[in-house]
């Protein structure tokens, strides 16, 4: 039973391996991302109404939800496309400013972002971001460092950001990794 007074202790649940697909429509110049749960990434070009979608790239990733071990409350993370570690690439960025402030106390800043296009898809709300942050901090057993998770809204131009997005790079390459 869900308990509003519960001091939640989060666990990861409903883990599903998937692909994150990035597509571009050459007609309207729209860039989209979405998760695919298919066994192979869909890479064929296709038409959808006015759009002519072409795959720009894909990476392996996971979908998951978070659930309280104590009261069973489930927080769905359907709007979460990925997590990115801020590495401080742009002096004027609000996330970098926060990082500079927090890194002195070893609090590391990660950005939780939703799917493209940001202005047309539902992004993560404050509760989802807060629960994500609690989950990763509860999971860390170190008392010397913490995680701060912020919304992707804080980044003015995502395409200029050089943060480190957590994804499986080159896992489907047909060539063995170079030494």
């Amino acid at each position, binding site marked *: 039973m869900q308990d509003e007074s519960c001091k939640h202790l989060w666990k*990861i649940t409903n*883990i599903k*391996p998937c692909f994150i697909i990035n597509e571009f429509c050459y007609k309207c110049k729209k860039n989209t991302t979405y998760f695919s749960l298919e066994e192979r990434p869909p890479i064929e070009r296709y038409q959808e109404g006015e759009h002519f979608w072409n795959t720009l790239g894909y990476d*392996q*990733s*996971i979908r*998951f939800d978070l659930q309280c071990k104590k009261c069973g409350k489930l927080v769905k993370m359907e709007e979460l496309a990925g*997590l*990115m*570690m801020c*590495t401080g690439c742009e002096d004027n960025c609000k996330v970098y400013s926060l990082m500079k402030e927090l890194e002195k106390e*070893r609090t*590391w800043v*990660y950005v939780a972002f939703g799917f493209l296009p940001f202005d047309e898809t539902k992004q993560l709300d404050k509760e989802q971001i807060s629960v994500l942050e609690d989950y*990763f901090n509860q*999971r*860390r*057993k*170190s008392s010397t*460092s913490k*995680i701060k998770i912020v919304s992707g809204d804080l980044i003015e131009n995502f395409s200029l950001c050089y943060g*480190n*997005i*957590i*994804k*499986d*790079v*080159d*896992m489907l390459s047909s060539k063995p*990794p170079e*030494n």
Partner: protein
Amino acid sequence: MKLKELIDKFELKALTNIEDTHIKGVYLSDMLSDVMSRAESGSLWMTIQTHKNIVSVANLIDLSAIIITNGKNVPDGTIELANRFYVNILSSPLPTYELAIKLVEAGVK
């Protein structure tokens, strides 16, 4: 076992500055999403992945160290990022399986 003891015992090469810490388990995987969702905080992570994304994952879940196996070269960018975020990276010439057996035999589980 502490990390510096492990480095000496298994002749691991430290590729970054080392912050000594207790090892609380071992996780073997080459998929970052798998490590992010399942590895325990404080674990050693053995992998052949060397992309700088490994630093983001190790930092996020507070792993004790990453061991790059098979003697793979690690790009300078990965090492620089790891030093900045206090992530320990070690290297072993052994394949993951062989090093895992040695760790188990030494009581590191």
